[in-house]
């Protein structure tokens, strides 16, 4: 259904996710803060949904700013 292929960036904590969001916002990279999908984790966590095409530059932008746990397909 989605034209865009999404991936999710998972973090150790909500604070990490928020920091990563700020970093991507500053870098002007599109992303969306969403609840962690239930098939990934039943925690009440949040993660960043990204366009798979942006993965590399997102990894680069986050490196040194905030550690992410995992990036995986949605």
């Amino acid at each position, binding site marked *: 259904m989605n034209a865009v292929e999404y991936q999710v960036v998972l973090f150790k904590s*909500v604070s990490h996710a928020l920091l990563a969001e700020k970093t991507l916002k500053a870098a002007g990279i599109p992303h*969306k*803060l969403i*609840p962690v999908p239930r098939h990934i984790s039943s925690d009440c966590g*949040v993660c960043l949904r990204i366009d798979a095409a942006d993965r590399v530059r997102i990894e680069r932008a986050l490196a040194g700013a905030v550690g992410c746990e995992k990036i995986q397909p949605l």
Partner: protein
Amino acid sequence: MEHVVDARGQACPQPVIMARQALAEHSRIVVYVDNDAARENVRRMGAKLGCEVTIDRRPGGVFHVHLSRSGGKPLADGGTVAVCQPVNTHDYIVALSGETMGKGNDELGAVLVRAFIHTLLQMENLPTRMLFYNTGVKLAVQGSPVLDDLTQLSEAGVEILVCGTCLNFFGLTDKLAVGGVTNMYEIVTGMAAATRILAP
């Protein structure tokens, strides 16, 4: 000239009663309703009274039910007409009274409200209507982090209603980016008529 009866937000049997009263004084009326049960009840009442009935569908789930007593014919005796159909118990509305979900920590609350609205969009059973008031109106204006999701909800048929007094208070009236401006009358009647209200 059609006499207008605005029965939006009214629970059964109110729309029928309002229409019946208006028909006693006017030969042509149009009743605004916002749900299937009200539309059917008003249509049936009109037909029973010998009126000509036409219905047109308007945006936002609103129906205009036109009733006319042709040639000024007296009303037929419709007997008791206000028969309520069972309401759809799956119906619900969402009331957002703030730009955060819950109270305590605003940074967290802002994350939660975004997650709430995003998840709402994935529900099979969408709310019929979402009400925004107090700082909740900030969710529906330009630059809001939930604008995309609200726009999709609106496109999916959810009626987004935003408190005009509140927009005015925050100086955001010209920044409204999704939904329509509403007033306290509509907020109160909408809440009073709701089967269930989610207030995150």
